[in-house]
């Protein structure tokens, strides 16, 4: 199947280096300390953060820094065919671990010893790049909760089909069987916190694809900062400043 036409257009009409439309909202879950909805094209996820709060299971308490827990689940209706087991299956457990480690790298956990931070991410619509959307949503939710972080974390995926590096794969492109590189970075510190790839790629092409994903991450960073700035302005208006 042809994923990139002769004119250089993908199946959804995008150019190879073009991302899908981004949309984000903060503060949707009123009971959570922080929450956010993040959309990348048709992929839509909601993240809720609770904490820092007292550790519920005392045996897991850490005396010098905070415990970070993360749970990733997909709604039954998020995929094309109804999903039977939304969480507890291997893929969800792996992604929960990946998101936890990614966010843990940027949260200043040593400032909150003996406490717990819970990150819950739920996929409402899955169309490729759910991992990245979840990390971006978690970043916004942590910022909304006021949890101190080293930098924001942004994530984006890229692939390689029909000899072209493609940015931000959707589900059809992801299922094509080509490589899928997911990158998570701390943009201001210019550090990579997450790098995952499946399938095979020659090293020089891999460098190009990874670089493309990093560019995508930087674009998302600009968007996230705009959203956070707008949110702060709203908070100021409400306080009457």
């Amino acid at each position, binding site marked *: 199947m042809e994923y990139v036409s002769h004119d250089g257009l993908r199946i959804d009409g995008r150019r190879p280096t073009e991302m899908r439309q981004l949309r984000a909202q903060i503060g949707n*879950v009123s009971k959570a300390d922080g929450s956010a909805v993040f959309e990348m094209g048709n992929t839509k996820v909601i993240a809720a953060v609770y904490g820092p709060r007292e550790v519920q299971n005392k045996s897991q308490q850490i005396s010098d820094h905070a415990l970070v827990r993360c749970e990733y689940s997909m*709604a039954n*209706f998020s995929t094309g065919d109804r999903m039977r087991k939304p969480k507890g299956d291997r893929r969800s457990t792996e992604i929960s671990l990946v998101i936890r480690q990614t966010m843990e790298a940027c949260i200043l956990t040593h400032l909150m010893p003996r406490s717990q931070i819970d990150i819950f991410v739920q996929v409402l619509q899955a169309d490729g790049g759910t991992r990245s959307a979840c990390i971006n949503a978690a970043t916004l939710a942590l910022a909304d909760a006021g949890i101190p972080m080293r930098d924001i974390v942004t994530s984006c995926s890229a692939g390689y089909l029909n000899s072209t590096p493609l940015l931000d794969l959707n589900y059809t492109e992801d299922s094509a069987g080509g490589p899928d590189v997911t990158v998570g970075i701390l943009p201001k510190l210019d550090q990579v916190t997450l790098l995952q790839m499946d399938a095979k790629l020659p090293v020089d092409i891999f460098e190009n694809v990874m670089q493309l994903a990093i560019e995508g991450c930087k674009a998302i960073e600009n968007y996230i900062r705009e959203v956070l700035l707008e949110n702060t302005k709203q908070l100021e208006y409400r306080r009457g400043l």
Partner: protein
Amino acid sequence: MIDLKELSLLSGKAAWMAYLDIYCLDADGALFDAALLSAIAAFSHLEIPVVSLNDDGKIVLISEEQVTAMSEGEPVNKEKRKLNKEKRKLTLKSIPLSLTCILHKNYILADPTLEEESIMETLITIVLDSSSQLVSLYKPGGPVLAYTSAIQDCVALTRQRVKQLQKILDEVISGMEVD
């Protein structure tokens, strides 16, 4: 509300299975009312796709292009027999809508928030349909015992609520049809 016969494809051989999954994103009291309303909205939005029976006796989904090709009279595949001409919606009769009230001493608090629910123990949920007929009444115990008059007041409140909700649903559905 739903006539299950509308979900049938081939009598005695094949029928549609409808899955309804309700997810609560933000809980602030009266979850049953919100869940029921969202379920009804979802069924109002439901469109049953076009399918055909192929010679193996299996039901297959027909894509949009094949649907237009078939209706224009060019046979895409002679063996495929369409089971329904176009995407169809379910006919919903007597739509049920509800209101939850909390009873506290001799007060009735309609549509409680989470905070109110957490400190009050007696609730009553009434479900009426669009012709104001009683579909369900649920009062699961609690320290406050309801006199008939209290229940009648709740039913009157529910009747008002049903009118409001019906209006909102109609607006949204007609807005959807324009698209």
